[in-house]
């Protein structure tokens, strides 16, 4: 396990020292000021917030594109998930810059970054942390005493790169489940919140399937988007040569803090969505289900399970972000059609016929988009 732990961020709320005894289980949850989980109506973002969003998003995209060459689409989809507050599963062959992309993102956002290399012998405690016994000096008795203290794992970071996530056992993979969905980690009888923002980027290699453990559907569903990292073209490869093997080393500028990122996420949520756009999103989602009346024939034939309601949330949230990135204040049908592939491709579970016939979820989504009426 390669694990980089930088200085403790004040936002994490997690003690990394070994001074703390048992913490109250729900203490951090009570102190959480999460916007996403707030049930009360929050303040509407103003013009300045929107302007800030557009400014930061533009800068961030520029920074990423300047360093990670030839992956503009991946960068765009990564930003969609980032500003939507979701996690991303990156799939691509080694060497395409997945790790570089994530590291550059953390550099540009001034966030704590942790990289976990998933291997078959990786244990859940290696991810979430563990409770250890430490010796502590007792000032009153001038002696020492042994206390239990929690040693946080690499998941206690803002951006977590779960590299080759499918190489770990399902037990270890599931260690991410709670953190990805609830933004908390439960160890023993204590539940600790994860730092905000919390962003998991999982990668997996589609080629080396031997000795891997495909992610279970529940795990897959927790990734907001599944982004396919394609091989760059010749022009981009030429640029990669110029930027990576020369004397000059590019370093991303910091364009936003974690707090600003949280604000941007809140801003994106305020983008209005018209009813007919929502209805179209619902139709798209329902069309992935083989038992639905409006499902296309290929879906009926090749799909075992369709996308969950999380898929609908992913569609709408990423569409909102895309609208702002496109300079609009509203979600359009085109936004939905643009984000439907990364949002739903990992949520459509093929049946045996589909796998045997070599059908991909992309093919099915393409059919769904073609056959689903926009009005």
């Amino acid at each position, binding site marked *: 396990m390669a694990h980089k732990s930088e200085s403790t961020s004040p936002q994490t709320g997690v003690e990394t020292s070994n001074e703390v005894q048992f913490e109250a289980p729900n203490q951090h949850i009570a102190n959480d000021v999460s916007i996403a989980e707030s049930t009360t109506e929050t303040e509407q973002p103003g013009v300045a917030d929107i302007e800030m969003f557009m400014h930061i998003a533009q800068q961030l995209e520029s920074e990423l594109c300047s360093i990670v060459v030839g992956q503009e689409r991946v960068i765009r989809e990564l930003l969609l998930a980032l500003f939507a507050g979701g996690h991303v599963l990156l799939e691509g062959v080694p060497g395409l810059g997945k790790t570089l992309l994530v590291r550059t993102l953390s550099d540009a956002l001034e966030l704590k970054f942790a990289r976990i290399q998933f291997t078959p012998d990786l244990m859940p405690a290696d991810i979430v942390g563990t409770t250890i016994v430490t010796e502590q000096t007792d000032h009153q008795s001038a002696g020492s005493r042994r206390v239990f203290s929690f040693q946080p794992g690499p998941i206690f970071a803002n951006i977590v790169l779960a590299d080759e996530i499918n190489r770990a056992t399902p037990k270890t993979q599931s260690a991410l489940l709670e953190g990805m969905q609830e933004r908390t980690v439960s160890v023993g009888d204590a539940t600790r919140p994860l730092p905000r923002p919390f962003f998991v980027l999982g990668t997996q290699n589609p080629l080396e399937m031997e000795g891997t453990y495909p992610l279970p559907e529940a795990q897959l569903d927790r990734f907001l988007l599944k982004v396919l990292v394609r091989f760059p073209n010749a022009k981009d490869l030429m640029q990669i040569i110029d930027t990576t093997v020369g004397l000059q080393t590019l370093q991303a500028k910091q364009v936003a803090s974690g707090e600003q990122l949280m604000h941007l996420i809140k801003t994106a949520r*305020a983008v209005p969505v018209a009813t007919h756009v929502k209805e179209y999103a619902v139709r798209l989602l329902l069309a992935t289900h083989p038992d639905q009346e409006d499902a296309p024939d290929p879906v009926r034939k090749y799909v075992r399970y369709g996308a969950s309601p999380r898929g609908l949330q992913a569609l709408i949230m990423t569409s909102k972000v895309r609208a702002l990135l496109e300079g609009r204040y509203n979600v359009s049908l085109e936004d939905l059609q643009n984000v439907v592939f990364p949002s739903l491709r990992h949520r459509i579970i093929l049946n045996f016929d589909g796998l045997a016939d070599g059908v991909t979820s992309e093919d099915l989504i393409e059919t769904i988009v073609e056959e689903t009426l926009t009005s």
Partner: protein
Amino acid sequence: MMIANAPSRNSTFELEENEGERFIETLYPWRRRLWIQQILRWTEYGIIISMICACFLLLISRFIPWSTAPYWAIGIAIGVLLFAVGVALWYRPSFERSARYIDTQLALHDRVSTAWEMRDDSAPISVLQRRDALQQLRKHAPAVTISLRPGRVRLLLFGIATIAIAVLILVPNPMNTFLQQQAALQARLNRQLAAINQTRLVIDNQAAISPQERALIDKILRDALARLQQSSSQEQAQQSLAQAQSQLNQLRDPQASQKAQARANASSSLQNSSNASISNTGKALASGDSKALNSSLQNLASQIAKMTPAQRAQLAQQIERAANQGQNNSQLSSALHQLAKAVADGNPSEVSDASKALETAASQDSANTASNDSINQASQSLQNAANALASTTDSNGNGQNASQTQVTGQGQNPGQTNVPGQGQSIGGQSEQNNTNNNSGKNEQVFVPGQVGSGSSNISVDGNTGTVQTGNSVPYSQVIAQYSQTAHDAIQDSNIPPDLKNLIQDYFNSLEGRH
């Protein structure tokens, strides 16, 4: 793929009053233009569909006889057009639909429709969105964006429909001829129905016929009228008429002609007597005058007592001879025999009884004759109807529904169309009650039931004619018609009574020969 330029970001953001209303006001001209476009488009489609419907109906009328097809085509075309225009006027585009349309037409990425939905939302981002939508909308003009010109597809469809309907109107419909024939047939049927009905009424008013016979004849004629009304072709009409004639023939007394002949012979023999009373009795029998018969018989009874036996024997002999002459009429002959015997005996009471028997026989004979005449009249009416139907069809130039015999008239039968021995009305003038004069004219003679290929010449009392091809008519029908015609001809009053038997024997011999 860089972030697109953000829309106008004014440095100051203030929520203006009635922004939502201003947005609606901006949408008004768009919606109006869209409505006009909708009306025009629906009207164009209405015209095209109405023309297609009209074409369809006109096309159907070329395969199925449908006289009112053009009116239906016009009616449906107008109806479809009015419906289309009505729908377009009724369903005015809503603001929401207009907004969606504008978004699609101008590729505004649902800006306008979202702004319409959020028109009352005062959240800053909604206000920004609304202003952005308005700004984008103001870059376009409704008159430019929403075109009122008809599309190429509609123009093409209109052209095709126009050509099709023009062809269907200009090219003659083959069904029109058939429809005209049907109409003509119906008109002829109506005329014949009226004529037959008139005959029926006449027969109903004849007191000389017994009520039972009158009812029977009436029923046959009414059935014939009903069947004629339901006839859809001339063949059916002819068959109906032939059937009715056949039924009338069954009512006929087969001995009627012989009885009439016997009566005529007897009366003729009595008229030749030197005794005035007997001669008057003969005249009364011949004329069917019951009062005169009664009076002459009373005179005879009063004279009997004054006559000598020799005179009575001579008188009885004359009466006996008359009885023998009328032996074919058994009742009359018996009564005359009884009278002859009573006269010979000189018994007044026997003479009185014999006179009553003779009066009864004469009365019965008159009733039979009247009934027969009514049947003849009804049969003749039906025959006239059949001839009229056949002749009119032929005069229409079809020449397919009846055999036609063209006779070159030689003026030998002026004023008379019933020619003895021809078995059919000659001259085809039945509709005019056989009053036409065929002298010096070409007349058409129809002989139902004769089928011929090519032509043949027949002789009609010195006239020659040509039989043309016609439809098949059942042999029994032809025989019945000929038999009836022959009977009627023989019963004609212009034929001397003594020749009637001769003619009857001649036809009987012909019948026996075949």
